[in-house]
């Protein structure tokens, strides 16, 4: 059988995590869990791109501090974001004196970077790796959609890119939730052309990875306290539940979606949050906290990414999706 799931023998620990969000996100459902809420979206910078970069720098520094490490203890940075040529991560990496691996999995980047980092750590090649992703509403909006001041209405299936950055330190030693498994996903495209309907475009990828994961690990949804997707949103997560049901697997109350949970009802975000920052901030605040408290024992975290670009969609291409899954278990003494 073909194996796309990795089982980590040494089980790398997540020894520090940090999340930073924008003001609107700071009013959302997870507001008390975030480490830092920015006063405004510029974060003291001149442009939104510079603000996103500074968020990444802040998140990386914060995660290293919370892991009680020094910057010199870090071996590698694995990071990515949504902008062309992942400039926010690459430019943020200039500020640090360790090697940098840029990864791009659109909104699935958090799981992708943790999976890559865990593999490197588990292999015994590196001791401490820091992972980081971020997204910013205003930079994503101008790159993928329209200028901010344009007076248009957002279609009802659209989602709101979360302004936020999340970072965590993966380590061989120390105490913290363990990364026990990772399933790397295939690129799946079921021909959705509507760029405003990311949830529908990414749901088949989530299904594909989820099926592969359950099959490879011989687990069922009941083996997890929480199965959480990244930013399928309200519509996409409903589609995923339907798709899984067609395959004979029922996702129950332990399934939820970061994007769907992120904002409050009255925040006008239509189908919920999206972007790298959406699941990255939730994972590095809320989910980590619950794992440390022991409220969750075993979490399956599988954010999805829509690998589109404006050029490709203007040429009539459909939106391909990808989904990477990681299993994080609470630390045991």
């Amino acid at each position, binding site marked *: 059988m073909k194996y796309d799931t990795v089982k980590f023998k040494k089980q790398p620990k997540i020894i520090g995590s940090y999340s930073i969000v924008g003001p*609107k996100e700071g009013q959302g459902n997870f507001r008390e869990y975030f480490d830092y809420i920015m006063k405004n*979206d510029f974060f003291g910078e001149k442009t939104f791109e510079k603000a996103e970069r500074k968020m990444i720098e802040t998140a990386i520094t914060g995660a290293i501090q919370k892991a009680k490490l020094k910057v010199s203890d870090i071996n590698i940075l694995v990071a990515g974001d949504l902008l062309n040529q992942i400039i926010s991560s690459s430019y943020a990496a200039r500020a640090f004196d360790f090697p940098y691996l840029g990864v791009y999995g659109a909104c699935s980047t958090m799981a992708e970077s943790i999976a890559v980092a865990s593999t490197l750590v588990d292999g015994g090649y590196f001791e401490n790796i820091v992972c980081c992703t971020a997204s910013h509403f205003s930079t994503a909006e101008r790159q993928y959609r*329209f200028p*901010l001041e344009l007076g248009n209405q957002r279609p009802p299936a659209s989602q709101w890119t979360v*302004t936020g950055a999340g970072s965590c330190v993966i380590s061989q030693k120390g105490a913290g939730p363990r990364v026990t498994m990772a399933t790397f996903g295939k690129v799946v495209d079921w021909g959705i052309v*509507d760029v405003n309907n990311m949830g529908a475009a990414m749901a088949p990828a989530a299904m594909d990875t989820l099926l592969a994961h359950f099959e490879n690990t011989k687990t069922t949804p009941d083996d997890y306290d929480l199965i959480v997707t990244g930013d399928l949103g309200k519509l996409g997560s409903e589609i995923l539940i339907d798709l899984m049901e067609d395959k004979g697997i029922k996702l129950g109350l332990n399934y939820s979606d970061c994007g769907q949970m992120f904002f409050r009802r009255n925040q006008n975000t239509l189908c919920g949050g999206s972007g790298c920052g959406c699941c990255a901030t939730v994972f590095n605040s809320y989910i980590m906290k619950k794992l440390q408290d022991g409220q969750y024992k075993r979490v399956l975290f599988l954010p999805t990414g829509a690998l589109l670009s404006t050029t490709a969609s203007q040429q009539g291409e459909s939106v391909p999706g990808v989904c990477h899954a990681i299993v994080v278990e609470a630390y045991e003494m």
Partner: protein
Amino acid sequence: MEMFLDYLWVFLIGGLVCMIGQILIITTNITSARILVTFVIVGVFLEAIGVFDYISAFAGAGINVPIIGFGASLAKGTIGAVKSQGLLGIFTGGLTATAGGIAAAIIFAFIFALIFRSHTKK
């Protein structure tokens, strides 16, 4: 009373034109650039078949303020110039008639772009 009726027509026709735009948005999910293009072409067409002036006579701003009016003046300018200058009018007429609007949009956009910066949506 007559003035009130005039303004009522302006409101009704203007509102109706905009509502047709909204119907297009809801039913076909088209972007604002496409909406504007569609209505400009409608304006050019209405002027070309000579209907625009009849609507304009009682609708006033109701048909001139929507971008249809912009299309109509493009066409009106071209037709007028063709009449007076012949072949050259095809090239000069349209933009001459609408130069005020286009120049105003460019000038004010430039000035305000220098003054303001974009605000994050809430």
